[in-house]
């Protein structure tokens, strides 16, 4: 069992990281009181922006172009998420419908533009290469699991995770953001602009989701095709599974990462090959459902998530 875990670990981590960063984005949005079901579409936008940027700059900048692509993805994700912010914060529209519209526009518009550029609608790039971390990869047991054939983006996301945790719990902005999700009227009466806080939170979620989509492209996928395979929705599930808390999300994302990777690599592992594929493939989703059943009664969801803020309402 331990050996299996070691074997699949690099792949599982590669799968987990985009999920984790997108779920962190969802965390910021929902803790501020805006449900962002458009994460999936924002990931597609990020993936698209990165694919275009990398294609344009790879001849001149070689591997630096990939980092530029990640940056472009974050900017594009943040910019596109403002559509959702405008609808759900300024116009007090139904946030689930607005998010669904974001998903649909992202999927259709990016492929439409890509088809105009490449004909097929797919854009291929040469992704990041994996590397072993010198020294650390020699550590017995965990060295092989965590520090062998890693992507640079993995460490970037873990760094962002720590920063995101710190900002959310140790800064004034983080406190205000969390308060906006629990009792926006109280925040407003303390003289804070609730709408501004929510706008920034949604933009952060867009940037994170964009980065997540770009990481899929620049690590294990290598090709833009207008879809992120439902990972945005899985990130939402990780957010709820993790009960809207960073460490919970970390655990949930890694659970999904390892469960999915186990399912896809089961054929190659004798101990798992006897289990029917359908059981392995549906396992993460069934567990999520069960976890939701257990935790939803005592849900830690932000109290006003999904509700528009009205100044006069108490």
């Amino acid at each position, binding site marked *: 069992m331990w050996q299996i875990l070691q074997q699949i670990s690099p792949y599982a981590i590669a799968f987990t990281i985009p999920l984790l960063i997108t779920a962190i984005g969802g965390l910021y949005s929902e803790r501020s009181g805006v449900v962002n*079901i458009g994460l999936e579409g924002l990931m597609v936008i990020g993936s698209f922006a990165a694919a275009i940027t990398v294609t344009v700059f790879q001849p001149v900048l070689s591997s630096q172009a990939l980092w530029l692509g990640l940056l472009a993805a974050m900017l594009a994700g943040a910019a596109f998420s403002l*559509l959702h912010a*405008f*609808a759900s914060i300024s*116009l*007090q*529209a*139904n946030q*689930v*419908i*607005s998010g*669904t*519209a*974001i*998903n*649909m*526009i992202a*999927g*259709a*518009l990016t*492929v*439409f*533009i890509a*088809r*105009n550029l490449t004909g097929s*609608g797919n854009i291929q790039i040469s992704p990041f290469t994996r590397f072993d971390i010198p020294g650390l990869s020699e550590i017995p047991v965990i060295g092989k699991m965590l520090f062998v054939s890693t992507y640079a983006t993995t460490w970037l996301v873990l760094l962002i995770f720590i920063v995101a945790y710190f900002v959310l719990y140790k800064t004034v902005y983080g406190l205000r953001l969390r308060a906006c999700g629990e009792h926006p009227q109280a925040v407003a009466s303390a003289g804070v602009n609730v709408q501004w806080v929510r706008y920034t939170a949604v933009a952060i979620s867009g940037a994170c989701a964009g980065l997540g989509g770009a990481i899929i492209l620049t690590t294990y996928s290598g090709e833009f095709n207008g879809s992120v395979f*439902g990972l945005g*929705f899985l990130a*939402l*599930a990780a957010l*709820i599974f993790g009960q809207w808390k960073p460490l919970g999300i970390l655990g949930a994302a890694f659970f999904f990462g390892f469960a999915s990777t186990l399912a896809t690599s089961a054929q190659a592992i004798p101990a798992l090959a006897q289990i*029917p*594929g*359908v059981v392995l*493939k*549906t396992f993460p*989703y*069934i567990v*999520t*459902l069960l976890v*939701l*059943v257990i935790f*939803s*009664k005592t*849900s830690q969801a932000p109290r006003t998530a999904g509700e528009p803020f009205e100044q006069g309402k108490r």
Partner: protein
Amino acid sequence: MTQFHYEERKEVVILLMTILLGLVAGAIFMLMTGHDPAAGYEFLFRGGLMSLERIGNTVATAVPLIFTGLSVAFAFKTGLFNIGAAGQLLIGGFCAVAVGLTVELAKPLLLIVMILIALISGGLWAAIPGWFKARFNVHEVVSTIMMNWIAYWLVYYLVPAYFKGAFETESRNIPAAASLRTEGLSQLFDGSYINLGTFLALAAVLFSVFILQRTTLGFELKAVGFNRYAAECAGINAGRSIVLSMVIAGALAGLGGMTLYCGYATNLQIGILPSQGIDGIAVALLGANSPWGVLAAALFFGLLYSGKGFMNAMTSIPPEIADTIIATIIYFAATSVLIEKGIERVRKSQKGGS
């Protein structure tokens, strides 16, 4: 009374404005990518309407959308957001295909059995998230998405294992006795793939209108949608209403699956989550969650979808423009407050002027 009339008229105007804005946005996208929007729209609409065969195909494309649109709209009336129409459609369609491929009966009888199976399986599939919502307060958006992926993988493994067709990724073709297509209808529309699903869809619209407007059940479902706690105070069993609403929504989507795989298509493709699920949300939204509105919206989307291939062939505009237009319309529908404010302003300035 006149006030009410005005409100209704305003709603229609807003809807038409959203569609118009969506089409304008589509034209802008075409212009930005160096295409001629006038030619684009001409071929898009001609592709969906220019012959009897193409009109038939437009209707056949719209039929599954009518079902998923009704499914989403029905759940929405009870305050539920059914993102799971895709999974319910897949399960209902799969069960209908399975029966069609294994049971040997005379045509009308076999079709009736398949319809019942599609209704029941889709309904049961949706009952699970409904029960989770009523009993454990599990948010239906996430649970129906999970159910979608479970349905996707179930069908992904079951089809090749038991009903493998010419390719690994599809089922065997269903026999003529299990097909909703009939020779008479196909000949009437010059060989189009319009089928009996059209009548099923009309029946579903009438059924929804009847349930929602003429029955106690419909009243209870809507009451729970307006305010669950007030409804409970009035003695309505909210949990039961939520489960029932999901069951009906799932049954509608399930039957839509049968019209998709045994009417519009002739077999079941695996490896894709049917796009009709998400499009159903768009249809319901544009149709203002009313059954007749859903019918109109689904026909409109069916027109865009069935015309896009012809447009692509004639103008080199990528077919995804149709999906982009639909998506933009949905965003404008979500932000229709802006349009409403615009209309109010125009009305006020007219009043002030006269």
